[in-house]
Structures are given as C-alpha cells and as structure tokens.
C-alpha cells in the first residue's frame, strides 16, 4: 500500500508522563509492521517529520490543565476523523487531577519566584470534558496489547471492544488466590476495570486501581468492607484517590470517605448518593 493510501495516525500529548505513548513504542515486535499498516503522520516523540492533517485516527495522551490546551484539543478534534484517548490522564484527569480536590489556596503554600511566568488552570480534566471522544482506553499506563487490538479492529473496520468487567475475573482466570478474602489485603480489584491482566495480586499486592472503575462498580460496598477490616477513613479515601481520582465512581467514594458517616450507619443510602453524583 502506498503511504498516501494508508490510514494516517497522529499522536498528541497533553499533561502526562509519556508512558502511554511509550507503550506504542513498546510494541517492539509489531512496531515496524504497524508503521507499514498506517501512516504515522504526527508523533513527535518518534519522528521529526510531520504531515499536516486531517488524520484518520488521533491518539490523545494527557489531561487538560492550561487554557492553551483547552484550545489545542479543539484543534486536534477538528483535524481528527476518529479520536481515541489513551490512559488515565486523558480519560479521567490523571494523578495531576488531585488538584481538583484541593481547597482554594491549598496548593499555594509554596510559591514560585515568578508566578506570573506560569499559566495553569486550577483543574485537570479529561479530554471528554472538552470534545467528543470516540473511544477511551483506560490504564495507568494503557495495556499495549489492548491498544494494538483497538488499532487492528479499526483497520479491519470492526468495532473495538473494551472489557467492562472487573480485575477479579482476571485473577480467577490466572488462578490467583483472592488477597482480600484470604488475607484481608486491601484491594480495589472488585471495582476496577479489567485490562492489566491482574498484575498486582499476582505479586501479592492489592490492586490500586490503575484502570479506573468498572461500568457497575459498587465502591460503597467495597469501602464498607475495607473499613470493617480496620482501614482508616483517610486511607480508604486515598485508595480511591490516585491516578483515576477524577473517574466519577472513584471520586464519589473518595469524597464520601473524607467525611464518612459512623460505620454502623453506612449502607445502601450512601451507595445511592454516590451513583447520583455521576
């Protein structure tokens, strides 16, 4: 296929760590094949050659944290036939989204010599808060096999499929004994979207939620269990408040745990209010 006939792909970066872009370069065995199947038209981390849009597919990493980026994502959307967000920053605002919970002035305890040199927003928001997104790939970082699967599906004209079930099913699939049940290890597996392959429980560590909430996450039930096991409210709040702190279900639970009702009063009433927050 000639270069012009191949679908063009652009990769864009907003506030992020580069890890999801790196996952593209981590497709070592498939990278040259991929480069043969599509035309990589804009991918600054990889190439100094860029081709003007429009692009058939844009992959967007990172969250929106500046006014410039509010405008830049509009431009990216305009030149993109399809737009897929890759990773926790782009889909939920990322770890830098913790600023969304800060009280006004809380992050201003340390001062720049010249604050007027810097222009940032008080919030870190996902791409979907600004422009329509065709598909969201979860993970901190994304799983590169999932990314390849999605690109392959698009090239073949198939509808890409993203799992909506929990990490628990992946643990069962690989025969990992449940850490939460057998040892009481705090684990977000029951409410976290599958996709990583249940990496943490396999190394004796509870899941810490890299892929964000499942479609039907019952976070209140899990938080109640963790509290009954003796976890402090602040720790429970922090557990939900990391890389996907801005995902609605995790956000609601982390807020609920900041000022939790007495343990005995917890239950279905709070679960409803958390859902109402989405």
């Amino acid at each position, binding site marked *: 296929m000639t270069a012009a006939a191949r679908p063009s792909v652009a990769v864009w970066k907003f506030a992020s760590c580069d890890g999801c872009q790196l996952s593209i370069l981590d497709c070592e065995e498939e990278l040259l094949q991929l480069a043969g199947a599509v035309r990589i038209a804009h991918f600054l981390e990889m190439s100094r050659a860029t081709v003007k849009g429009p692009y058939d597919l844009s992959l967007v990493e990172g969250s929106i944290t500046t006014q410039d980026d509010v405008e830049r994502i509009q431009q990216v959307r305009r030149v993109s036939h399809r737009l897929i967000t890759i990773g926790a920053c782009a889909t939920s605002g990322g770890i*830098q989204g913790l600023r969304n919970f800060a009280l006004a002035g809380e992050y201003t305890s340390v001062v720049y010599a010249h604050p007027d040199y810097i222009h940032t927003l008080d919030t870190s928001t996902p791409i979907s808060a600004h422009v329509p997104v065709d598909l969201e790939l979860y993970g901190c970082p994304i799983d590169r096999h999932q990314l390849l699967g999605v690109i392959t599906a698009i090239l073949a004209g198939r509808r890409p499929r993203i799992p909506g079930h929990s990490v628990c099913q992946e643990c069962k699939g690989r025969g990992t004994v449940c850490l939460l049940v057998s040892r009481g290890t705090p684990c977000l597996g029951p409410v976290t979207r599958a996709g990583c392959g249940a990496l943490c429980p396999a190394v004796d560590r509870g899941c810490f939620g890299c892929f964000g909430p499942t479609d039907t996450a019952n976070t209140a039930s899990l938080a109640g269990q963790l509290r009954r096991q003796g976890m402090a409210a602040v720790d429970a709040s922090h557990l939900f408040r990391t890389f996907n702190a801005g995902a609605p279900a995790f956000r609601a639970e982390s807020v609920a745990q900041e000022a939790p009702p007495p343990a005995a009063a917890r239950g279905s009433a709070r679960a409803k209010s958390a859902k109402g927050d989405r």
Partner: protein
Amino acid sequence: MSHGSGAERIISVEGLARVEGEGSLRVEVRDGTVTDVALEIFEPPRYFEALLVGRNFTEAPDITSRICGICPVAYQMSACAAMEDACGVTVDERIGALRRLLYCGEWIQSHALHVYLLHAPDFLGCADAVELAERDRGAVERGLDLKRIGNLVMETVGGRAVHPVNVRVGGFYSAPSPEAIAALAEPLFRARDQALATVEWVAGFDFPDVEADYRFVALREGGRYAIESGRPASSDGLDVSPAGLAELVVEEHVARSTALHARLRGRDPYLTGPLARYALNSATLPPLAAEAAAGAGLGPVCTNPFRSIVVRAVELVFACDEALSLVESYEPPDPPAATVVPRAGTGTGATEAPRGLLFHTYEIDGSGTIRKARIVPPTSQNQLTIEADLRQVAQEALELGDDELQWRCEQAVRNHDPCISCAAHFLDVTVESS
C-alpha cells in the same frame, strides 16, 4: 523553522521531536555571533510536590513513578531510598541486588530507545527510526529487541515495564522465583551481544568536532559503576552525601520554562547523565564494557556531546553484563521487603536515572504522612548545560544552511536525552501573589 534578514538569523523549533515531553528551542544569531539560546519547556506543570503532601510515605514510589513513563524505576528507587533514609532503614544485600537488576532493565530499555529510536536517526540523516528501518532494517530490529529484553527484565522483577507494580518502600511485594530470574539469562546473553554490536555501529558514525568544558556530577560507589546507590561526586572534587547534594543544589525560575533551573551553590552549571557517569566511573567498568569503550576509541573521559551515543552504547553493554551476573548470583530476598516503621524526620535518596542523577527529599511526620517533598530530576539539572552546548554547537556550525543548522541544534539538545516531562513536573506551585 528558520528565517533571517541581513545580519540577523533566528533558528526556532516549536515542537522539538524525539525527546520525551514537549519543548522547543530558539537560537538567535547577530552579525555572525550567537547572541541568545533557549531550550524552552512548555510542558504544563503537574504539581507533584504539592500533591504528595498529606499522602502516606508508602505511596511516594507509585505516585512519583507517574512523573515519567520512560524512567519510572528511577523515581521509585529514589523515593524508596529517601523514605528509608528518613526512617533509618538499610535494606539487605539481596534486596539491593534485585533493585539493581530492575534498574539495569530500565537502563537497557531507555538507552535502547534513545540510541536507536531517538538519537541514531540524526547521524544517518533520517527523520525517524521507521525511515532508518527502510535503509537498515537489521539495525532497527536489533534495537527493538534490546529494548524488548530491557522491558522483559522490568516485567519479570517489577511486574510491569511502564510503572512497575512490585516495588515498595523497603523492597518488593514479592521476590521473583529463581526459575523466573534464571529464564532471563538467555535473552540477556543475546542482548549483551547486541549491545556490543551497538557500540561498533555507533562508533562508526560521523561526529561533529565539538569539545565542551563540562562540570560532571554523578554518583560514585566504591569499586563499581553506581546505579541505585552511591555518593554524589563531581569532576572538580565534590564528594557529599545525597542530603549534602540536596543542600548544595539551588534552583531558579526563569520565564521561558516551566522547569526550574538547577545549579550548585557558588559554582557554574553542571551536567549529569552518561557522560558524567562515564567520566567519574569509567575505571570501574567491568572488562567487557571497558574493552568495548576502548575499541570505540573512548578515553577515560568523553567531552564531545555528540559522542554521548557511544557512551550510552557502552552503558548498554555494562547494563546487560551486570544484569547477567545479578541473574547468575540471584537469591530471592526473604522477606522480600524490610519492615519500615515511620518516624518523624527528613530523608534524601539519589539514584542514577538513565538520563542522569535524580534525587528526592521528603519530610515525614511520626505517622508517616508526607509534610514536604522536593524532587530534582536530571533534565532540570542539565538544562543550563544543554543551553551552553546549544550556544557552542550553533556558533561552531554557522556555516551550515538554515535547515542543516536547525537539525544540528536539535541534535545538540537530543545529545543529552532530555526528559521534558520529568523536568516540568517537579514544579511546586504557581500562585498569583498580590
């Protein structure tokens, strides 16, 4: 883009390619003299040092690894070292060896990425590795295989290549089985051969004739090439503890950058990274890497920034060789982590990220809550030196046409494998103080 009229000439690159993160460069020339240079960093700050405050000390490795997807292990190791320092804990040799193995994996992955995908295309006149592969597919496949094997080491020890999950303050959540570690030997033998071939390959490139006057800073540790521990030292006689370095480094905030520029109090700018490590530690390289360096024409010190690709390739040989000996002598740490009980205090941890020295300092309270965090990544330490390079390289290449000069300037930046994502993200806070 470059343009100019009469005696004035401006080279500017808005979106610098093949670096990690988003930056730009600008060079101004007037009457045959470079009058101004700037490596501009416009990555939005992510306020890590602010968002860490109030979190538990055990969370620092996972949270700070998200500063950089290219060198997450460096962040995890420096964070662990700082917290263990604060709590007065020393880990045993087996945990130290497993950390070093994980870190070797990151060096292999990151150096293979930089040498083959980011840096080599410059020397061969290619826009990227895909174009390079059209001319020399074997070379690019060799680089990708090396990178894959680095990732394999990280996955085996750390559970995942980008943001490993098995690292904790005190050590690891679980020790890999001896079988899993032994299975790394075969790919690492192959990687070592590929690394040797890499040294030969890059040694044959054409290098601009540039010699810079660097002040090098790197970790030094007894008779071995320092990676995950050691004392900061400089080419002009500095020898301090990590905490001592943290006290000496001052940072300044300039308009063109969302990163702070670091320098040593009372001294000129300095350089960290492969050239610095090599200059301060080349005598400790094991025979295979030392012979590869000599074969490539490197003396005990290299001050040509363009030849950093050769030094990086020598470090690839070293990292593969070192990983192999760690694999051969592996004994699972038991328990896999030291118990770390928090106590009120301050701790500093310094380790050698692939692109240079990275140090963290934390103040924690008696319950283990972080009260203060300071993270100084390699690129903010290197930024002033990169600009000095840019000035020198541009001045010595003014006879080139605009396009070629622009490319040469881009190279002057890529020589140091800057990680702009890292540099921007350690920023503290922005405030309108009225």
